[in-house]
């Protein structure tokens, strides 16, 4: 089918575009982007509502889809559904499933489930070590050819400096980054919140920020030695940010991501003992939060990732010490980013697109991040002035473990288009009905 998105404001920083453009799509591929395009024959014309902004499809580089093995929390299908509602056209999923994604079989299984769901694109991240047990390298070449886009032992850190070095050297051959969950276990111990005043008052075991910072320094130094690409997952503290900045200054190939909960919340939240404030790395103090926000602005932080970690209600309804770490994030990320970063003037929409589309695409080496003639039409339609009330009970994700339930936010997702097909249309945004015509032919 042929379609023309008419009159919308398009933001594509990779091409230096921020203004009104028409976008022509044919058979799911972008064919033209320009002002005042002539309408070809048999084209469905879609009037883009003036309240909407068209961006390259957002890519979340860090989610947990829980399938295979923990389907009670989430499946590839429900996770992809949550992703598109959240405005994401693609997600990269971590290998800490059961069994671990350390071989082609599991990778192919995940890809199969994703194509059955036929919603967001799913890019599996393979394990660094077999079973993610930190001993022996996984068969990374096999993982790459099966479809993995990066490697990580997320959930755990890459266990030793030697393993990290070997992983970097090896993965570099295939142009893949090593993504590290930086946590020195001997320091974090049985900690459940950030070590500091709040932990002292609440009587909870603390995790010192140093547990993250030390490993970030390790990984950056090694990347300097190997010349490979290392990506720091869910970076949370000012100290870690300094290490990344210093690495970048020395032209080391280090990148990092920050989650919306880390730039929105601080460890003051733990006073309520609500386990929806329990995650790793833990919420930090406000100085760290401020440093992260500054980093998002000045480029030290490369991308926003959700670390979407679904957990069943029963598992989270436990004593704070016992409850599992993690919260969902796919369906709140865009609204939080618009509300807390864009509307407060910290960043503009162009920078938002860099953080949520361009940079993730580049670091993961996947298609997207820009609206390219000849490339699949993956688009995120934003409604920056939409009033959104977060309603966990309405989440498409199987799990509702979010600290943001009931929050009123300024800004949301109007629609999500994957391969020229509308996979999500927000009924609360007037004028979006017209996008319904975008469907697969046949």
């Amino acid at each position, binding site marked *: 089918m042929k379609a023309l998105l008419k009159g919308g404001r398009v933001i594509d920083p990779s091409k230096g575009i921020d203004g009104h453009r028409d976008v022509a799509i044919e058979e799911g591929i972008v064919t033209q982007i320009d002002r005042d395009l002539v309408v070809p024959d048999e084209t469905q014309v879609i009037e883009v509502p003036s309240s909407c902004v068209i961006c390259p499809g957002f890519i979340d580089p860090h989610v947990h889809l829980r399938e295979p093995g923990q389907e009670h929390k989430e499946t590839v299908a429900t996770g992809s559904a949550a992703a598109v509602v959240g405005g994401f056209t693609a997600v990269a999923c971590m290998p800490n499933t059961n069994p671990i994604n350390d071989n082609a079989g599991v990778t192919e299984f995940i890809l199969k489930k994703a194509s059955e769901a036929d919603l967001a694109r799913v890019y599996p991240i393979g394990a660094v070590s077999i079973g993610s047990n930190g001993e022996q390298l996984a068969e990374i070449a096999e993982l790459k050819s099966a479809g993995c886009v990066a490697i990580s032992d997320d959930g755990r850190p890459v266990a030793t400096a030697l393993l990290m070095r070997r992983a970097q050297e090896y993965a570099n051959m295939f142009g893949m980054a090593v993504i590290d969950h930086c946590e020195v276990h001997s320091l974090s111990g049985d900690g459940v919140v950030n070590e500091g005043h709040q932990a002292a008052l609440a*009587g909870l075991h603390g995790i010192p920020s140093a547990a993250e910072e030390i490993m970030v320094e390790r990984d950056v130094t090694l990347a300097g030695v190997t010349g490979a690409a290392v990506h720091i997952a869910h970076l949370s503290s000012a100290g870690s940010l300094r290490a990344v900045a210093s690495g970048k200054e020395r032209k080391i190939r280090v990148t990092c991501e920050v989650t919306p909960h880390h730039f929105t919340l601080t460890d003051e939240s733990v006073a309520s003992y609500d386990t929806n404030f329990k995650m790793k790395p833990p919420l930090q103090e406000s100085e760290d939060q401020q440093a992260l926000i500054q980093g998002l602005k000045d480029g030290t932080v490369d991308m926003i990732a959700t670390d979407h970690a679904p957990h069943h209600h029963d598992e989270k309804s436990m*004593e*704070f010490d016992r409850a599992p770490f993690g919260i969902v994030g796919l369906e709140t990320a865009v609204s939080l980013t618009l509300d807390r970063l864009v509307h407060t003037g910290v960043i503009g929409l162009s920078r938002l697109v860099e953080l949520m589309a361009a940079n993730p695409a580049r670091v993961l080496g996947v298609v997207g991040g820009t609206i390219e003639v000849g490339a699949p039409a993956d688009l995120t339609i934003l409604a920056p002035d939409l009033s959104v009330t977060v309603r966990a009970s309405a989440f498409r994700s199987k799990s509702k473990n979010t600290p943001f339930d009931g929050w009123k936010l300024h800004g949301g997702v109007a629609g999500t288009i994957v391969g020229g097909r509308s996979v999500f249309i927000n009924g609360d945004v007037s004028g979006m009905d017209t996008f319904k015509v975008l469907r697969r032919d046949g």
Partner: protein
Amino acid sequence: MSDRFDSEVRSVRETGAINRDSSLEGGRRLRSRHLLSISDLSVDEIFLILDTAEAMKEVGGRAIKKVPTLRGRTVANLFFEPSTRTRMSFEIAEKRLSADTLGITVATSSIVKGETLTDTVLNLEAIAPDMIVLRHWASGAGHLLSRVCKSGIINAGDGMHEHPTQALLDAFTIREHKGCIAGLKVAIIGDLAHSRVMRSNVLLLKKLGAEVCLCGPSTLMPSGVEAFGVASTTSVDEAVRDADVIMLLRIQLERMQGGFVPSLREYFKLFGMTSKRLSLAKPEVIVMHPGPLNRGVEITSEVADGPHSVILEQVANGVAVRMAALYLVAGASENS
């Protein structure tokens, strides 16, 4: 006119008693239907509990140590951690108020997983206890419970977080000896990092205007200790100098296994309360300990059994304070 009851009369005036033709005099109530932490209590509420405990103490002095106040009420003592003295204390307090007590010990821990806390309590709700006295190994367990459960909850110790009735009975004991708590110098010595007794006491003493000094080895000093806003030192002599009250906390064997102190012997050398160290304090100093004692570790027998020690009084006062807590929480629960 007899002047023996002057102080009572004056106190009625001071509380702004309203003229009524019943004996209902300017009543006060706890604001929350749970007693979970000192941090939630106002100074007013703390005094309410202490004043009520004074009246309750008298009941313990009678031949018939019973009043019908909580007759027909059921109190469940739900203990997820072993405890003899706190349990005993609550049980006696409940029986003195004529309540029906239900003692439940649950053998789970962070390692041994059994029925969840939530499920245990929901099962308990079938018997509808009016109040639950909860001791648990996880900080914040009481908060979790208060979200799922209809009964009034009294925190008898949650993980490392708080032990409010202990701090209240400590304050009660101090008041009996020193009259007023404001301005007193109180030294708290021992394993501060893991102590819920420390947290509750620091919060309470600070609210009442005492000058608190925390003392212990650096490895057992809670990180983020500045959050409490009190002085801290690793020198026991400095902490004890001119102290009016010395509170000693128990050192547990596990602390050595965790690498916090090299040996109990060394701990005793540096921090143990001996008569010699005690002489640095004010002459009328009182020595307190929540129990059970490790003689020869945090305290010598000489001091524990000596004239400055009020350790056994603490135990007796514990019953009165817990009676007050039960009475007031029962009244607060009824209100909501």
